[in-house]
């Protein structure tokens, strides 16, 4: 009953042209991941701006209703209730990490409101249920792509693995290891380290003695900066293969001068892409926020665009209809140009179909290095 009243009220409002289409959003604006939280929020804001400049959706302006989850899973759960029950949003984008997104996904599934994970990689998120989607790359897929990059492109035979001890790191490593062994490489060393670790020297000293051909290290940008700097300092000059966690302008800033050079990562934002939307996104982002766009911002942008596309396709602001519309989204339709990342739509399992781009850090930014398009590898 309440829902009917609400829908009637909403139709009345929209007829008067007073309503806005709300997109729910949460990200770690404060806490240890504040830099990524800011990037995600910027990306989402830019997407809303982009759509509103083109007249909004269903004849109304789009509004982003966002909250700070403070890098805490319980906060993400509280926000889920708040967004659905107080703010009455019909679709939500997660701009947060795996831990928070996993916790919130259960609530959205229960309340039957679709949620799109922008860049959280853990497999369990989407497995929560039929209302949960992912725009970013599934960890296992990205790990697999990393293995192809290491073995096929860089020719590594003996690989050392360093894993950050959380959802993100462990699931990436699982995908990487399985595929690397399949491709005939040998894992000579494997070790986990806790989040926030700053001194990798003892571990790296051991890796140095083993003389691997490459190091696959899962990390976020601040650990990655320490790890890469210390490896180079200790005289380890083999390729270091990272992934989207490295993909932040902060990474090279925090690394020792020159240490970031030659680091290869698997990620979702191809900075050398000629696509007009990518060029617009990178330029607009720099102009508006005075920072370089990163993969987190691009993923949040795409997730919000996907949500808005689904609303347009559904032709209504009803959560169930938006869910069904999301499942049918494809890149490259006429009314909106393509997505910024390599996102091409959702699979039957609501994971993203995409091209994984490999970027190498040279000089002062990441450049195109290679890409993984083989459907066998990139299909989750």
């Amino acid at each position: 009953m309440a829902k009917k009243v609400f829908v009637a009220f909403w139709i009345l409002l929209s007829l008067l042209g007073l309503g806005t289409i709300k997109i729910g959003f949460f990200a770690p604006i404060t806490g240890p991941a504040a830099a990524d939280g800011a990037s995600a929020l910027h990306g989402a804001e830019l997407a809303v701006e982009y759509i509103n400049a083109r007249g909004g959706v269903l004849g109304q302006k789009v509004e982003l209703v966002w909250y700070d989850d403070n890098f805490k899973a319980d906060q993400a759960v509280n926000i889920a209730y708040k967004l659905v029950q107080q703010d009455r949003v019909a679709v939500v984008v997660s701009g947060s990490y795996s831990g928070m997104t996993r916790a919130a996904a259960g609530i959205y599934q229960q309340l039957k409101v679709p949620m799109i994970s922008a860049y959280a990689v853990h497999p369990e998120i989407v497995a929560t249920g039929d209302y949960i989607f992912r725009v970013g790359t599934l960890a296992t897929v990205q790990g697999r792509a990393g293995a192809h990059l290491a073995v096929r492109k860089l020719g590594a035979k003996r690989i050392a693995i360093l894993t950050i001890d959380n959802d993100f790191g462990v699931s990436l490593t699982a995908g990487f290891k399985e595929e690397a062994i399949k491709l005939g490489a040998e894992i000579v060393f494997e070790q986990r380290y806790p989040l926030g670790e700053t001194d990798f020297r003892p571990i790296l000293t051991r890796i140095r003695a083993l003389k691997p051909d490459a190091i696959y290290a899962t990390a976020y940008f601040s650990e990655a900066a320490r790890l890469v700097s210390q490896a180079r300092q200790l005289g380890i000059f083999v390729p270091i293969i990272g992934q989207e966690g490295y993909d932040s302008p902060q990474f090279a800033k925090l690394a020792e001068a020159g240490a970031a050079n030659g680091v290869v990562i698997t990620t979702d934002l191809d900075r050398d892409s000629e696509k007009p939307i990518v060029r617009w996104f990178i330029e607009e982002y720099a102009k508006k926020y005075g920072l370089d766009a990163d993969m987190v911002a691009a993923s949040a942008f795409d997730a919000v665009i996907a949500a808005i596309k689904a609303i347009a396709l559904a032709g209504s602001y009803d959560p169930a209809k938006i869910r069904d519309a999301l499942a049918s989204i494809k890149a490259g339709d006429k009314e909106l140009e393509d997505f910024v990342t390599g996102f091409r739509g959702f699979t039957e399992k609501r994971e993203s179909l995409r091209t994984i781009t490999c970027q190498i850090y040279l000089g002062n930014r990441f450049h195109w290095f290679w890409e993984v398009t083989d459907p066998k590898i990139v299909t989750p």
Partner: protein
Amino acid sequence: MLQNVVNALVLGSSYLMIAVGLTLIYGILKILHIAHAGVYAFGALFTVYLYELGLSMVFAISFSLIASSLLGAFIYRGFYKHVLERGRIVPLVMSVGLFAAMEDLYRLLWGPYKRPFDVHLILPDLITPNLYLGSKGILMLICTAIVIFLLYLLMIKTKLGKSLRACANDLNLAGAFGIDTDRTITYGFLIGSALAALGGILVGLYDNTVYPTMGSVPSYKAFVVVVLGGFGSIRGAVMASYILALVETLIVYKFGFLLPRDAIAFLAMIALLMFKPEGLFGKVQR
């Protein structure tokens, strides 16, 4: 192996820089000065702030050290001094509150981001096929050696050092013998806080990163050093810092991160206290 020892020496120096000031303060007042880690973070953050404003490195560090000293003295005179009569719990709670407030203040002032502290030093890197020690590590070792030497001179040769030692021995008795205890304690805070700030600056340089919560781990970890070294013994703090760093480094080298390093440190502390409740070099507190 040599590489591990060198790494541990640098790591131990970073522990020592923060623990030595704490030892000084604990020795005199017998209070747990958690906010010391707040001063440590302030030293690093303020230096980077000044450096980004365009001051030269030497000036930025000097100003920051002076400001940090004053901050430490202010913490004593503005806060602890008024509650010293109330047992040890009150200053401890106050200190925890102060530290939390300081961290949030830094976040508001300088943002939550990790900031690079990229300075090119004139010192050379030491590079051989199986040993590497960067210029920032060398700086850390040199500064620590100088600080320990100066502190030794201060404690042994000067009147202030004698007063500090007298106060550490028995505050009331020292007062009765005509030592201006309040002034001596203030000096203890001035010196200890400058050392903490220098520690923060050196660690910031060594890791090329400063951030508002960089004092969180040192806030309790420095106490492990103080306890291991024997409460209030500077010589003990020096030994404990290096032993702890060596144990941590070797355990991580051999077994990886089975336990976070801090857990290793606490286990070492508990193990030692079982057998030597007064710490490595402490006197039994009566």
